[in-house]
Each structure stands twice: as structure tokens, then as C-alpha cells.
């Protein structure tokens, strides 16, 4: 069963925009994403709150997608090996701030179950 994930990438800001988009496309290919369930939000270059190594800036990209959990390890490996990615964070997607309470109630479909998330479940 596919689950909705949200990934934030911090690319090296010295890379060309086209190179970044190319990398992004390559990563997303590994997940075989369908375009309908995928949204990519490029924040662009932004100052880091603290230097990472010698870098003061990073190119932020937020992607939301539905993917099979089994496809994640390979994708994550590619992220780790890529020197152009300074940092990344993959999380299970939750609703946006200010999103109105939806009808799905407490029995959230995204509740971590039998997975390696150790988020504490609410009572």
C-alpha cells in the first residue's frame, strides 16, 4: 500500500538550477512516482540558520509524493551518495498548518503501524 511522504532536500546552492532539477528527476524516478500524486515546491536559495560545513546557503526543495515503502531504501541510498545533496529529510506527510479538521478523525490513515517509525501514538 502506498503511503504519502514528504521529502525536503537541501541542495548545494552553487549547483545550477538545471542540474538540481536533473538530480531531483533522477531521485524521483527511483520511486516511480505518478505525476498526479506528486507535488514539488522549489523554495530556491535560502540562507541556512547555521553553516553546514563551509556552506552558508542552500537550495531548498520540498516534494510530496505517494510511494511504496519498499522503494524507499534504494532512493535514500541515492540521496546519501549524492554530493550535491547537503541534507534531506523524509517524513510521513501530515496536514498543513491551519488545515481544517477533516472528517477522517482520529483513525488517521497515515498512522504509523508496524513500521519502523517510533512516533508515539496518541492514546
Amino acid at each position, binding site marked *: 500500500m502506498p503511503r504519502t511522504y514528504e521529502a525536503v532536500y537541501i541542495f548545494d546552492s552553487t549547483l545550477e538550477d538545471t542540474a538540481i532539477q536533473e538530480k531531483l528527476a533522477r531521485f524521483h524516478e527511483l520511486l516511480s512516482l505518478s505525476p498526479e500524486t506528486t507535488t514539488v515546491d522549489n523554495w530556491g536559495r535560502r540562507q*541556512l540558520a547555521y553553516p553546514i560545513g563551509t556552506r552558508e546557503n*542552500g537550495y531548498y526543495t520540498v516534494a510530496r509524493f505517494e510511494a511504496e515503502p519498499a522503494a524507499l531504501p534504494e532512493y535514500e541510498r541515492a540521496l546519501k551518495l549524492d554530493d550535491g545533496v547537503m541534507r534531506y529529510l523524509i517524513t510521513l506527510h501530515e496536514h498543513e*498548518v*491551519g488545515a481544517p479538521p477533516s472528517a477522517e478523525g482520529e483513525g488517521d490513515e497515515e498512522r504509523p503501524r508496524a513500521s519502523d517509525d517510533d512516533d*508515539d501514538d496518541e492514546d
Partner: protein
Amino acid sequence: MRRPQKSCPFCESRVRFIDYKDDRTIGRFLTDTGKILPSRLSGVCARHQRQLSTAVKRARYLALIPYIRGHQA
């Protein structure tokens, strides 16, 4: 004497999930040095305080907010 109950700012604005990418909002719940503000001072309810704590840690990792502020190495 009991302190009057503060109401949770997240509950008041009907936030269900705190967004770790929203550094502006998260920044309001940090001290000047960048620590997480205790809920006893901010009035955040337990559920949102737990979410806030996770959100702050994620935001720190992503260099959206600093781990420590005002520290010169």
C-alpha cells in the same frame, strides 16, 4: 493560588498538525537562545507541545532555525 489557565495558541487557530517547515510560527515558541519554550510559559497544550518539540527538532536539522542563537565560537 492557581494560575489562570492559558489557552493553547495552536488549538485556538485550529491547527491539527504543526508544520516543521513553518519557521516563523515555530520561532515564536523558542527562547532568545533557541531553546523550546516550556508550555507553562506559552500555554501550549500537551498534544501540541509534543508536536512542537518534534517540529522544532526537524526544523533545526534542516537549518531553518538554529540549534543555538547568540553563541559566538
